[in-house]
């Protein structure tokens, strides 16, 4: 038999890439949604923010759909255990994403009810942005599993301090994505407020990131001998720090890239501490769901590799093309 382990490890990396892609791209539009009440005041300013994400949010969400599909195809047990085990939390994610999505369209079409849809857009974006990190924190920190790979905890199992810390860290990173995207896409007063949001959020992110890294170091003692972990810490802190200079020099495009790079550092720490686990068992390490005991067969993994390695570069190419079409500052009336 050809070495299936290579493909299992490849798919750990590819799914990580899909989730990183999702967190950076949908991260900025969820972030814009969660920040909207704080950085925009007038109807026109809200229009500008909505238009800045309007053409692209849906394509961004496809990264989640594809990441979920890839997890299903490569590691069905991890997909099945997490989605059924975290049932109520997953339902909340769905409700949040539904409201986030329809609110954008309903607000654009329904002038009378716009204020309500702005609120539900904010609520949906915020809830989704918070919940993803909590879910990730749980699979990394560990949840109780039985010998059939089924989750044996309940809803409150998910709300332990370490997973909640992951949630807050992810949330602040998403807020920074949103604020720095707003800096790139807006002008005038809105730009000033977005810059202000970035400068506050950099501090917040520095604090949450350091607490996050320290917690990881103390929770998973083995990690202190892993070079990737130190790289991740250094990487995130460096890119966050460089945002200070970009803000100082009123550079409108680099904060978004710096925020994105620092976010990747948070993910690399997860990769370093989590590999080869997919869902860690908190009750007995031997019950953990890993890439080796939960994957599909070699045939499927090979097929998926072909689809991903040919398909994704094409997707990325036309996505870049379309982002270039919408390059520059967003206006208040671009639609229709």
């Amino acid at each position, binding site marked *: 038999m050809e070495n299936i382990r290579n493909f299992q490890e490849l798919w750990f990396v590819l799914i990580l890439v899909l989730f990183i892609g999702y967190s950076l791209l949908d991260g900025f539009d969820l972030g814009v949604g969660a920040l909207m009440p704080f950085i925009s005041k007038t109807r026109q300013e809200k229009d500008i923010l909505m*238009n800045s994400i*309007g*053409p692209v949010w*849906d*394509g961004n*969400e*496809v990264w*989640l*759909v*594809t990441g*979920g*599909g*890839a997890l*299903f*195809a*490569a*590691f*069905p*047990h991890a*997909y*099945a255990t997490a*989605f*059924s085990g975290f*049932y*109520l939390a*997953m*339902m909340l*994610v*769905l*409700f949040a994403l*539904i*409201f986030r*999505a*329809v609110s*954008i*369209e*309903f607000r*654009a*079409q*329904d002038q009378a009810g716009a204020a309500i849809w702005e609120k539900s857009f904010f609520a949906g974006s915020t809830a989704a942005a918070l919940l993803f990190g909590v879910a990730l924190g749980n699979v990394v920190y560990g949840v109780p599993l039985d010998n059939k790979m*089924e*989750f044996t905890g309940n809803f409150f199992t998910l709300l332990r301090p370490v997973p909640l810390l992951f949630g807050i860290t992810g949330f602040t990173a998403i807020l920074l994505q949103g604020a720095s995207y707003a800096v790139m896409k807006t002008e005038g007063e809105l730009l000033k407020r977005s810059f202000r949001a970035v400068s506050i959020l950099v501090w917040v992110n520095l604090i949450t990131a350091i607490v996050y890294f320290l917690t990881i170091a103390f929770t998973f003692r083995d990690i202190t001998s892993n070079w990737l972990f130190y790289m991740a810490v250094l990487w995130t802190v460096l890119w966050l720090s460089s945002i200070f200079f970009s803000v100082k020099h009123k550079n409108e495009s680099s904060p978004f890239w710096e925020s994105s790079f620092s976010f990747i550092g948070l993910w690399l720490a997860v990769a370093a501490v989590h590999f080869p686990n997919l869902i860690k068992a908190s009750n007995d390490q031997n019950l953990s769901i890993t890439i080796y005991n939960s994957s*599909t*067969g070699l*045939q*499927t993994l090979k*097929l*998926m590799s072909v*689809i*991903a390695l040919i*398909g994704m570069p094409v*997707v990325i190419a*036309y*996505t870049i093309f*379309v982002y270039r*079409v*919408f390059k520059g500052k967003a206006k208040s009336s*671009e*639609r*229709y």
Partner: protein
Amino acid sequence: MSALLLARIQFAVTVGFHFLFPAMTLGTALIILISETIYLIKKDETFKKITDFLVRLLGLIFVMGAATGIVMEFSFGTNWSGYSRAVGDVFGPILAAEGVIAFFLESVFLGVLIFAREKVSPKVYWLSALLVFAGGHLSAFWIVVANSWMQTPAGYAINEAGRINLISFTDAVSNPSTNIRFYHTVIASWITGAVMAAGIAGYYVRKGLHGQTARTMLKISIILFAITPLLQLATGHIHAIEVINMQPEKAAAFEGHFSTAKGVPLYLVGFVDEQNEKTYGIYAPKGLSFLYDFDWNSEIKGLKDFPKENWPPVNFVFQVYHIMAGIGILLIALGLLGAYLLWTEKIYENKLYLFALPFMIPLPHIAHETGWISAEVGRQPWIIYKLMKTADAASVVVSAGEITFSLLMFFLIYLLLAVMFVKLFIKIVQEGPAA
């Protein structure tokens, strides 16, 4: 109620609601592509106005489909984890392929259609219309592949551990029912779009609104309305033969046919007495046998050839199937009538037909929903035909209480979405195309 039954109801409600929107999306994308193609060639502003108007509608329709569609992908894991664990090898790559090959294409270029008319050249805009059309139809292809594999599985083997392994992806994708189900589903969507556009244009023409734009839109949509139900008759016929061959107990349930026989009748309307295993109604003698292979006396297998525990609910399947077929025939008649009126140029003055058009909009929806229900309930008790029972597929850790909560939430949220959708749909229609 048991967790299993609740999970099934939740899936039926969420997928049934979801499917309304992709069906409209595909049909609308087709008309947009036609209209934009003519605009590119003839540079006639009328067609640009039609495109722009339909793109606005598509924006609303698409977001409903996307928002309710993500629920479906999650649901395999949340509610059907037993299924997901068993079929990841075959079913997973199909869903992943749908994301990579189709969803990205459709979503990314829809952004261009909605927001970038002035930002890109007419050719790039036309190309975006083509790619949205292609992305939508590729999505339909992959999800139909997924469904067809559950109906007529192929390209797999079962290993010692009882798990389904992929042997040939090509065989899994081109399983015996993929092709015909794809055509049948896509044409159902085209009918849905054609009747929707005809309903809107008919309303405008009757009210004397939007002049030439409305008349041109009516013309395009009536031509499609005349052709597509006829095409659907052909695909429906071939699909029915496929079901008789590949899933005979489902086909037998469609017609309430119990004992294997020659010269089997075709029911127009009827009722199945499941207890006494008898079917009553108005029928064409030997009709089913004739349609099967154009031989009045061909033999059709009856339900009694199969163990009773593997029968679907016969009368229910019979009824939904006949609703679909009945509406299909009605749509053929209505479409041909429209074509006749268009041909004789009476359509623009025929108040009665124009008045009736908007009321036809729900008909294709009822037909495609009942069609899907007959295909899915007709497959019961199997989730994968003859391979895995629905009862073995549900998530074991999700309680009835949890599903009751989520089902209630879905019901309320989808009710709100439905109300908003109808309200905003009507609002966009009332604003109409640009003058």
